[in-house]
């Protein structure tokens, strides 16, 4: 079999690269990546100028994306293969997250499948390149779950402490860990120690068993933890929760959690959109708890439904709170809050919440004061502060009833 010319070899390789990258991203992105790499390599390998990779996919199809001038055939083999080595390595680096452990392997197999293309293993050994890549990745991922988890928890406590007193901040983060433990049992390895008189001093202990968890699973869990803590606090849209978190965590740890697959931008979106929803949910949940303690869960739900219906005409925003009246017995699960409520102006929501509480307790006579006190204790300081920011002054309501 006649040996392939340089122009043929590079054309096959480039087309295979475009194909493999295209499958992971898009073909136009693939062309842009390869074109960028080629331009970076021009100063070292001038002959690469004989190759044109153009983004003409939409107009002329794949075949016209790579064109190689025959001048490249005269390039000496060692220099030619060195360029291909660098081209593939740099392409993988440019792809960053889009190149997984299998990218080079797949490329290798695809090139092997091309009839007549026999690569010189001594000059271009893709098997070795794959080995090198995995070793490099593994080193980069030499992360101890226990250490990074401790740092993330610390950052979350400090972050929450910017909004609430220390004890409340610790309680918030601890509650989020406990909540997630239901689905991620290995979180039992996390213990946050604090004593009532600790004045905010806490100790986090993350047991080493957690290091057995695959780092990407740990990454997913940390993502949910950050999200959970973020959701339990209302953050002003203009003062990003994530920016403050990044500062608290520090660049080095930030880079680590990014490697673990934590996507802070995604969390930012989720968190900023959940504030009002959480406050409404907690308010209704607290009312249902207080009423059901004296009556029954189903009756408490019927009461909240009656109160909401009384106010629906006056407060448009209550259209975003739905109660499935055929499921009163299921309690708070029968209430659904539409995400549109997050776009409502805070003071409007505050007014509605204040009236919901007022009407719920209006027939309690001399016990109204005690009812509001109980509500305040049950909902907790964190949510009370959120409600205060919305203009709900329960103290004023208490005075009015007294």
């Amino acid at each position: 079999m006649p040996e392939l010319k340089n122009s043929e070899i590079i054309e096959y390789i480039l087309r295979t690269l475009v194909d493999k990258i295209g499958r992971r991203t898009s073909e136009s992105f693939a062309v842009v990546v390869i074109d960028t790499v080629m331009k970076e390599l021009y100063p070292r390998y001038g002959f690469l100028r004989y190759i044109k990779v153009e983004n003409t996919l939409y107009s002329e199809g794949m075949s016209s994306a790579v064109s190689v001038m025959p001048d490249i055939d005269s390039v000496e083999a060692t220099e030619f293969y060195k360029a291909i080595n660098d081209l593939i390595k740099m392409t993988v680096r440019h792809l960053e997250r889009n190149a997984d452990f299998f990218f080079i392997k797949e490329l290798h197999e695809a090139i092997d499948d091309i009839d007549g293309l026999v690569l010189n293993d001594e000059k271009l050994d893709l098997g070795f390149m794959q080995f090198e890549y995995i070793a490099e990745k593994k080193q980069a991922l030499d992360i101890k779950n226990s250490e990074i988890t401790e740092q993330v928890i610390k950052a979350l406590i400090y972050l929450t402490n910017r909004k609430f007193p220390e004890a409340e901040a610790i309680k918030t983060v601890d509650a989020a860990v406990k909540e997630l433990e239901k689905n991620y049992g290995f979180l039992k390895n996390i213990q946050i120690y604090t004593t009532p008189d600790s004045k905010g001093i806490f100790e986090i202990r993350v047991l080493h068993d957690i290091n057995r968890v695959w780092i990407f699973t740990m990454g997913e869990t940390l993502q949910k933890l950050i999200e959970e803590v973020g959701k339990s606090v209302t953050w002003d849209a203009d003062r990003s929760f994530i920016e403050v978190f990044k500062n608290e965590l520090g660049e080095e740890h930030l880079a680590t959690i990014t490697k673990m697959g934590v996507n802070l931008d995604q969390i930012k979106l989720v968190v900023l959109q959940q504030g009002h929803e959480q406050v409404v949910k907690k308010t209704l949940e607290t009312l249902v708890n207080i009423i059901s303690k004296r009556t029954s869960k189903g009756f408490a739900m019927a009461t909240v439904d009656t109160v909401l219906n009384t106010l629906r005409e006056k407060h448009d925003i209550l259209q975003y709170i739905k109660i499935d009246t055929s499921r009163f017995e299921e309690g708070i699960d029968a209430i659904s809050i539409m995400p549109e409520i997050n776009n409502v102006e805070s003071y409007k929501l505050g007014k509605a919440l204040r009236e919901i509480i007022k009407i719920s307790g209006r027939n309690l006579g001399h016990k109204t004061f005690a009812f509001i006190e109980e509500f305040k204790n049950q909902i907790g300081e964190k949510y009370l502060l959120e409600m205060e920011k919305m203009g709900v002054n329960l103290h004023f309501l208490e005075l009015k009833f007294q």
Partner: protein
Amino acid sequence: MLLGAIRKNSLSIYKIWKKGKKMKKKIMVVDDNRDIIDMVRDGLEHFSKGYEIIGAGSGKECFELLKKNQIPDLILLDIMMPEMSGWDVFARLKENPGWRSIPVVFITVKSDPYSKGFGKTTADDYIEKPFAIMDLKERIDKILNR
């Protein structure tokens, strides 16, 4: 002629009687104490023939009657009953679209401010036992004439 007048009168009396019968308001009393059911029946019927009392000795019996299409115009509901409390009966009534609009009045010995307060907010009325039958009648009529 005389016979014709008698016939005409009889027809009018029958029409009035039939109309009266039609307009009878069905009141379902749900209470595990049968004496209360009897007392309400005797009391309301003493004042007016416009009521028809249906008795149910428990929440379960109440739902059995409702399922048999014995739909009342109003329910007088005791709270402290064995098996299913009045609170639960109320919630189940409101869960069902066919029964949701039936007015419910709690009749109970529970006089604590919480039961009374939440009961008043959610139900159509809340009457503490013992009650005067005249007072009960007035409150029932008020709801039925709304």
